[in-house]
């Protein structure tokens, strides 16, 4: 190619790139806040989020939600287990697949040695041997799954709940490998036909995303208790509250009862405590 043509192409190429890049940069600077917001009455909303997630710093609110699970109550009333699983799974449209490998579960009953593999005992008491207890996402304070997620599709919200953004999840399942408690499930296929009792005020998920317990963030945000806690009724088998509030019921119970956590040696600092 002769030199003049080459130089021309070089200049043309670089100016095109500069032009495209420049317009993109200028657009970004001018855009700032994204839309005319739905605040017809001038409702004040924190505009820091933006539509593309710039400035995605989530300011902690000072709350930290946690849960106490009283194992003895589940031993005394074995029907509670079914109730809490049904309450959770029906509230959140969790599907039930015929093939076990596609299984999705947010909360489920399991044996003591599976919930606490680090506390394996050869000589367990009879109640522990014969009864099961519920396990769920621990909503850790130092969650390995949040560290692992490459898109921040799973993140810790301002109240310490580990949330899932199903819009952003790319389904890489790194969080599932990272979770030391096996709390996460993946939608291996389209769940639409497998939701038993559809709850019309909560969405489903689509195939290809990871899901897990979300501490009923939508109910807690409306001042209600999580579905599983509510399903326990008066028995106080599950207690939910703000761990950072020293006067809360959960803190009182933590003071009065000896509790254990799942695999504390891993440094995850779970928010779920078990009364043995």
């Amino acid at each position, binding site marked *: 190619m002769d030199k003049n043509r080459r130089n021309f192409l070089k200049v043309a190429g670089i100016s095109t790139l500069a032009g495209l890049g420049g317009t993109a940069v200028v657009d970004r600077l001018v855009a700032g806040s*994204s*839309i*005319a*917001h*739905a*605040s*017809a*009455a001038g*409702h004040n*909303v*924190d505009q*820091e*989020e*933006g*539509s593309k*997630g710039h400035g*995605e710093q*989530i300011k902690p*609110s000072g709350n930290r939600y946690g849960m106490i699970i009283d194992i003895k109550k589940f031993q005394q009333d074995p029907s509670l287990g079914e109730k809490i699983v049904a309450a959770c799974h029906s509230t959140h*449209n969790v599907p039930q697949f015929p093939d076990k490998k596609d299984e999705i579960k947010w909360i489920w009953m399991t044996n003591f040695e599976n919930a606490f593999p680090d506390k394996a005992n050869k000589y367990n008491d009879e109640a522990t041997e014969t009864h099961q207890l519920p396990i769920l996402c621990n909503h850790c304070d130092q969650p390995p799954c949040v560290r692992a997620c490459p898109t921040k599709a799973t*993140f810790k*919200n*301002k*109240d310490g709940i580990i*949330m899932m*953004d*199903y*819009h952003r999840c790319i389904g890489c399942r790194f969080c599932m490998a990272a979770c030391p408690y096996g709390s996460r499930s993946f939608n291996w296929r*389209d769940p*639409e036909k497998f939701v038993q009792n*559809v709850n*019309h*005020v*909560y*969405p*489903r*998920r*689509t195939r290809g995303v990871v899901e897990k317990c979300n501490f009923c*963030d939508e109910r807690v*945000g*409306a001042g209600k208790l999580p579905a599983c806690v509510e399903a326990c009724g008066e028995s106080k088998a599950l207690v939910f509250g703000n761990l950072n509030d020293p006067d809360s019921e959960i803190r009182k119970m933590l003071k009065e009862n000896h509790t254990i956590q799942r695999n504390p040696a891993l440094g995850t600092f779970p928010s779920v405590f078990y009364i043995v």
Partner: protein
Amino acid sequence: MYDSGKIIPGLIIFVLFITIPIWYNRGGAGSVPKPVLPKDAKTCVLPAAEIRAQHMVLLNSWRDEVIRTGDRGTFEIEGKQYKKSLMLTCMKCHTSKKQFCDTCHTYSSVKPYCWDCHIAPVE
């Protein structure tokens, strides 16, 4: 021109192929979609032109506010408080996905995947 016996017919076929959208449906322009508006509400979250252009931007910002920032604050229209939610606000007035959402989406060949997860109202 070398190989003009191959190139000219090839060019003609190419031009015909690339202009298919123009001549394939000639004379049969689809009618402008008429979404069925809700009877009991007068104003939407935003004025009609804005909401038509920006409803996805609005929904995405609602999602980020509710899920990420944790701001479940409500907003007011005509004296009533509404949540920032597709299923609990939008679909409460626009109660038929087929008669409202689908009319424009089908016309403009848009296939949003909202309904993979967000449960459309029972028709």
